[in-house]
């Protein structure tokens, strides 16, 4: 599904990622954990094509194709989804309009018929119900005035509607209380499928109690310093990241 090879990324002339290697097979969930400033968000953004990140070395292959050569909208339409750490507020754009535009833009890209207003409403109502989201959130402007939990739930709603092949969750657990965290995890787990992979980026082990990963990687100082099974997350909870800070330095 995803192959990251020797990836070096600089931001404003500062090297943030210093040679990342990571392979995710179809159906797998990988967790990337690490302290603040280790390059976790850079890894998330580089996958979706945000401006301001320069790849100086290495490559990223998605389903065998050069992901880095694709525009953000193309990546999305090909099935890459980023759940934002800080979802963006868009005043004046109703959430429903935004969701419908996104779904139909991807359908157009794939040569599928667009959903009309009725068809879309039917689909979105179903998903909203499954995720326990208030209908009223659909009418409001995208993320405007949403609480932290609502914003994250809205990310899960988008993910459920867009049905990506590769989902990247960038600190989706940050700022959530335990109920919101469970709701987010339920949304993620509902999407687990043999042909869908996920990259869960988190600072805390807590989220991994609910989303159980196949593999855990520790990112520190721009490198993956350790990889292991799901038990690695629990170990980190006990020991913290201190030992890796010295490894990376």
């Amino acid at each position, binding site marked *: 599904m995803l192959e990251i090879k020797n990836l070096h990324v600089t931001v404003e002339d500062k090297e943030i990622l210093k040679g990342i290697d990571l392979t995710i097979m179809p159906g797998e969930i990988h967790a990337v954990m690490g302290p603040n400033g280790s390059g976790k968000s850079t890894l998330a953004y580089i996958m979706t094509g945000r*401006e301001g990140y320069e790849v100086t070395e290495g490559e990223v292959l998605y389903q065998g194709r050069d992901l880095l050569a694709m525009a*953000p909208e193309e990546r999305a339409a090909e099935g890459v989804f980023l759940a934002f750490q800080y979802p963006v507020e868009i005043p004046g754009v109703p959430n429903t309009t935004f969701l419908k535009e996104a779904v139909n833009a991807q359908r157009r890209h794939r040569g599928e018929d667009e959903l009309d207003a009725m068809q879309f409403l039917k689909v979105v109502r179903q998903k909203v119900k499954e995720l326990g989201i208030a209908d009223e959130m659909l009418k409001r402007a995208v993320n405007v005035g949403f609480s932290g939990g609502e914003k994250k739930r809205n990310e899960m709603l988008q993910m459920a509607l867009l049905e990506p092949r590769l989902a990247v969750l960038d600190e989706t657990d940050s700022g959530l209380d335990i109920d919101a965290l469970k709701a987010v995890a339920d949304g993620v787990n509902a999407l687990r499928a043999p042909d869908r992979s996920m990259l869960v980026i988190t600072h805390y082990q807590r989220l991994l109690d609910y989303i159980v990963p196949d593999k855990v990687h520790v990112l520190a100082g721009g490198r993956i310093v350790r990889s292991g099974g799901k038990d690695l997350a629990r170990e980190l909870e006990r020991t913290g990241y201190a030992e890796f800070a010295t490894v990376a330095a």
Partner: protein
Amino acid sequence: MTTAGAQPFVEQYGALKGALPGVGLPWLAELREAGLARFASLGLPTPRDESWKYTNLRPLEKVAFGTPNGEAVSIDRLPSLLPAGASENRLVFVNGHYRADLSTLKSLREGVEIGSLAASLERSPETVAEYLGQIAPAGGAAGEQPGEQPLLALNTALSGDGLMLRLGRGAKVKTPIEVIFIGAATEQALAYHPRNLIVLEPESQAVVIEHHVSLGGGATFANSATEIELGDGALLHHYKMQAEGPETFHVSTVHARVGRDAHYDSFGMSLGSRLSRNEVSVRLNGQGANCHLNGAYMVRGKQHCDTTTLVEHLVPRTSCREVFKGVLDDEARAVFQGRIVVHPDAQQSDGHQLSKAMLLSERAEIDIKPELEIYADDVKCSHGATAGDLDHDALFYLRSRGLPERPARRLLIEAFLTESIEAIAAEDLCPAFLASIADWLKTD
């Protein structure tokens, strides 16, 4: 001394005066002569005039404008902003002349006068005399705010026809009154000077919609002036769509006096003309008087769009909100000059002003000049201005969900402008405004 740019208009007065509305009324002749003298001495505004620093009328001076000869122009389809049946009163003016054949007026009832100014000058000149030129001082009134307005003086001298609306105490006109101004020119450039008078006596209410459009693709200069008197507790929603052709010049001067607990609500959308200026002056002169001055504009190419407002808080407890939003592309330029004056007695005045501009091109430009003059000590006044590109984070967010860049940009621009329409009270009008935004984005 008459300046070179003003001379052709001064000469037109000599040729036109026998055919202008209200000919033979001595008080009106006096008003016109005073306006002409004022205009002749001031000349056309230049960037040396403080309030015209950012808007240069040189391009206007270069065009040789003739005067409309009153010839009937055939209109196939009325450019109405409202769905059929949404309005009972529609007035159509072509090149400043009223067209009874195209207009629809509901039979008048007691206390409701809706029609053309020229007709009112014939029927009941004394009621017109009470207000015309009195709300917007054009001739003398030295030192009176807002000072010199040469184009208003020119309008007073040459003013043609326009809307006359007078509502008696407590009269309410439910459906919007639509006034369509069509500028129709082909090879010969034409100048015309619409004049509107709106008098709402205490507790009366109306919705007035102005629609300014072009026919024929020629150059026109529409120099419009509107005087508005709102009695105590009166309510006027005043909407305007300015969508004249690319060869036109549009200048509009509005003066409103707002009485105790009266509300003047104005929204203008500007997307036409190579050069446009909307100048609105409001005097809040009764306690509890309130105004909303809002607008949106969309300009591209080499269009120039100027919004100039003056709000005077003259007595205690008056308030005003101003929000103007614009989108500029290519080499378009916009100007926002917003002046708020709080007079010494006007304690507890509340005035807020905001200008937000979205610059889509590096060559687009906006000049913003907020001015607060506060002579009272217990007031709440603020102003704010933003100018910038689209929100890059929002754009990336949309693209990361699969929207290609162009539709994503359009969605964001549309949202930015649509917000300013949400406050429009005349629901029948919203579809036309929304469509104008969508059309403008489509021709990108």
